[in-house]
């Protein structure tokens, strides 16, 4: 029977107030009665879940928690397609961030006199490399493909875990559904599907990454054609990091390095594809700081299980580690399993690779230095002045002399610049002038020039650079202050056997 809300007597004096209080209390404390409580609870839970999943999905789609934001698809691939529209790529580099950071494609191009491109991707494995190679070969004809060996092994378990996530991300939704249970333990399902869940700790520990993801970097228009290589790492190893090596030792143990499941399959596919397109194959190992790795021979053996099956050349700079030349300043300031080369180190390794391709392998690469278009494309880029003379009308670099013979020494070219990036006096000696050993020692240079409006004669001690331009030995001094060089009038070697001090 339906009860009336208030009985008449409730409204009598003195009772009205208490009834209201009763009702209020009932409203506050009494359990609410629902017709379908189970449905109500399920409905509410579903609404909350839908909202939560919606929010997470939103941040996933916006890629706020991406560890990096599609670097290759955003930057490298468009640059590649733009380049091949008008030009030809002669040498293409494939691999992970090690080759992207360790080889400067401009320096390599300038040293080789042809066009090189770095088709790298952070965290690549051989599967990635194969599909990159396929993209490249089906679009353009390349003479040489250089493959970096870091992609050929799985360095540590944690790297395998990360690559597992990145591989999973590339799959289509139906395959993902099928593969989730196979690839991940149950507690990692969410992490596999959602970058937000996986990288939520960025909120406290990598806010810069989130900011960058929310406000993506507009890549500035490059002064020179973009060739895929990077120079993101700028801080080289500090003395305190060296002290860490003293106490903790190397971080990478070659004995623990193994192949990934699909490595052999994709290695064979890569080699076959290159042969099919008549592309020469070269393998390259970019070094890490020598104290970063122990038992490198074991790692080398693992890589050699693949490369050894072929007759293709392999430049292994880790094995041929030159402790005097590969100084700590060339490596980034961390003790990680995937330690990179810094931006100032990349030119050295690029020139070594160039020398290897040109001198040791004597590959038949096209000489584009005779093409004005090629010079226009590379003029002033990194490594250009080191291999070619500045133009007469160059406002940045000013020629001091060309083909000057002083005794037995032939100076191919000397120039100076006060501009920020190329500040200094550069002297390029012909390789026939002295031996490799001498090329690592300082030389005293006697010059005429102007200083504060007066003609003066000055002596500079110029130092060999880390660079190994293919055609010459390069010397440089950075500080020239107000001195404007006019002419080289003499040189003096520090080595007694190769002394050549001749004055006009």
């Amino acid at each position, binding site marked *: 029977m339906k009860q009336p809300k208030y009985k008449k007597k409730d409204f009598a004096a003195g009772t009205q107030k208490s009834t209201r209080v009763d009702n209020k209390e009932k*409203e*506050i*404390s009494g*359990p*609410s009665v*629902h017709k379908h*409580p*189970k449905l*109500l*609870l399920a409905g*509410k*839970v579903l609404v*909350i*879940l839908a*909202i*939560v999943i919606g*929010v*997470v999905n939103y941040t996933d789609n916006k890629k706020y928690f991406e560890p990096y934001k599609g670097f290759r698809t955003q930057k490298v691939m468009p640059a590649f397609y733009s380049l091949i529209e008008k030009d030809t790529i002669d040498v293409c580099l494939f691999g992970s961030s090690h080759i992207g950071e360790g080889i400067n494609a401009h320096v390599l191009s300038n040293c080789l006199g042809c066009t090189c491109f770095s088709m790298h991707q952070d965290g690549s494995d051989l599967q990635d490399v194969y599909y990159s190679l396929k993209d490249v070969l089906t679009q353009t004809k390349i003479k040489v493909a250089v493959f970096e060996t870091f992609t050929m092994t799985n360095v540590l378990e944690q790297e395998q*875990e990360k690559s597992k996530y990145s591989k999973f991300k590339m799959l289509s939704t139906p395959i993902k559904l099928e593969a989730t249970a196979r690839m991940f333990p*149950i*507690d990692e*399902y*969410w*992490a596999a599907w959602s970058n*937000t*869940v*996986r990288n*939520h*700790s960025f*909120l*406290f*520990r990598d*806010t810069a990454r989130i900011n960058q993801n929310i406000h993506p970097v507009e890549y500035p228009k490059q002064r020179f054609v973009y060739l895929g290589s990077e120079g993101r790492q700028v801080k080289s190893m500090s003395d305190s990091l060296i002290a860490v090596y003293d106490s903790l030792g190397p971080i990478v143990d070659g004995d623990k390095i193994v192949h990934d499941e699909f490595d052999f399959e994709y290695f064979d596919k890569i080699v076959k594809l290159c042969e099919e397109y008549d592309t020469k194959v070269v393998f390259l190992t970019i070094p890490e700081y020598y104290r970063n790795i122990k038992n490198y021979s074991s790692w080398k053996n693992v890589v050699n299980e693949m490369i050894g099956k072929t007759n293709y050349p392999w430049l292994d700079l880790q094995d041929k580690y030159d402790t005097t030349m590969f100084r700590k300043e060339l490596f980034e300031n961390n003790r990680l399993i995937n330690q990179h080369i810094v931006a100032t180190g990349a030119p050295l390794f690029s020139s070594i690779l160039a020398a290897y391709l040109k001198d040791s392998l004597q590959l038949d690469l096209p000489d584009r230095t005779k093409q004005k278009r090629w010079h226009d494309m590379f003029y002033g880029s990194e490594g250009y002045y080191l291999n070619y003379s500045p133009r007469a009308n160059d406002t940045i670099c000013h020629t001091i002399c060309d083909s000057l013979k002083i005794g037995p020494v032939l100076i191919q070219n000397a120039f100076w610049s006060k501009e920020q990036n190329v500040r200094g006096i550069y002297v390029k000696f012909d390789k026939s002038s002295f031996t490799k050993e001498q090329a690592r020692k300082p030389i005293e240079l006697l010059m005429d020039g102007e200083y504060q409006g007066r003609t003066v004669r000055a002596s500079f001690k110029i130092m060999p650079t880390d660079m190994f331009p293919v055609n010459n030995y390069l010397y440089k001094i950075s500080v020239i202050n107000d001195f404007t060089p006019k002419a080289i009038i003499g040189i003096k070697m520090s080595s007694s056997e190769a002394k050549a001090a001749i004055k006009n």
Partner: protein
Amino acid sequence: MLFNTFSFALFLLITYTLYVLVFSKNLKVRNIFLLCASYFFYSCWNFKLLFVIIAVSAVDYLMGQKIQGTKSVPVTTNSNEEGSEPTEAAPYVPAKEAKIYLWIAILVNLGVLAYFKYTNFFLESIWDLLGLFGITSSAYSPLNIILPIGISFYCFQGLSYVIDVYKDKIKACTNPVTFFTFIAFFPQLVAGPIERAGNLLPQFDQPYSFNYEEARKGLFMIGAGLVKKMLIADRIAVYVDGVFGKLGDAGGYPSFLALVLFAFQLYLDFSAYSQIAVGTARMFGFKLSDNFKMPYLSVSFKDFWSRWHITLTNWFRDYLYFTLGGNRKGKSRTYINVLIVFAVSGLWHGASWNFFIWGVLNGIYLAIFDKVFHLNPQKFIAKVGCCLFVFFSWTFSLAFFRGANLHDALQILGNIGFSNIDAIYNFGLNSMELKFAFYLIAGLMLIELLLKNYGEKISNFFFNRFFIIRWAVYIAIPLALIYLGIYGEGNDNTFIYFQF
């Protein structure tokens, strides 16, 4: 299967749905379902060790039956049934046989506990002792014994049942399924609360009907527990682990901070577990005991132990302290009893001298400050002072609880000071994250203070009014867990009390 994992969420969803829609209609079927679910839950850690819990349950069940059989009153169904309560009668005197059965149960429960938990500790201690007399050998190596999760909890729960039957506080349970479910009930199986048979057993005989309010409040308790665990406790743990991992480099201030933070980590971690356990049980229609009542607002050590891990403290009080004579045998004997209880409680937590010292230290606090000085402040300022005194004394003792060994405990205590203040951000938490942890702790303490004074009102207003705020909280909890929680690769998210 931890409470703070996706697998538990899935397990809970499936189990609860089946429970509500299918298995709750018939009492027997419901209990069988709960038993199966509980055994499945436990076997996710180690299937083989499930047999230990089954064996212990079987012995306790049989001994309960046997003890009941020695009584003149015939065995009825379960306790607390109408008419089964003993009426006015002469004090119950157990038969001799009953004592034998009781001792069998005690020996089996404590024997199992001793074997799995204390064998290596015992052997190591003997070996160390022999070493003091110059007898050493390299032959000794610890035995490979896996500690079954939750063994200290379910053994104590089983033991309390047999003792209560022996003392005629309850009637023995006649239904093995009910009893086995009582021992293995999954919300409280691995880390308590340690339930008394008198409270929990009868609930298995009450039919379940879905209650929207209970389910909603249970879910909310789970959410709140997860916030405590994943947002605060696990975040603090990163810092505490960082300092304890590098004690040599920590210096004064980081060590002090780590110890204070550990006090909060321990409380939040364990109270979160208890809250999730109580919330889960509530959803299934069971009411478990509270384990914590804002212990860091205690003004005396007696007060503290009536608010901290209440079910264990009560267990020791009822079954050990009173058995030893309690405070009825003179002052000095009372102090000794207190020290014995706390020493045993320390060893219950972990098989090491660290825990023993931790227990004894807390026994001394209680004996000296409460029993001797009668710490009982009345004025507000005195209460605040006592509250801080109790907290920091407790924190001091936790050096032994957290230290991996005596050396670590003494080192962190020796480190304490205000040096190395610049290094506080070098132990796993950056400035932003450490501040965030502090704000959360402060916020939580404030909420606890408000709940202490206005708990009922706040709860009623929250659940029955403030629609928008309530829904904002409902949505904020899972989002906060996902975005701000500590979980995933490289994080240890186990509950501290799982190791006991």
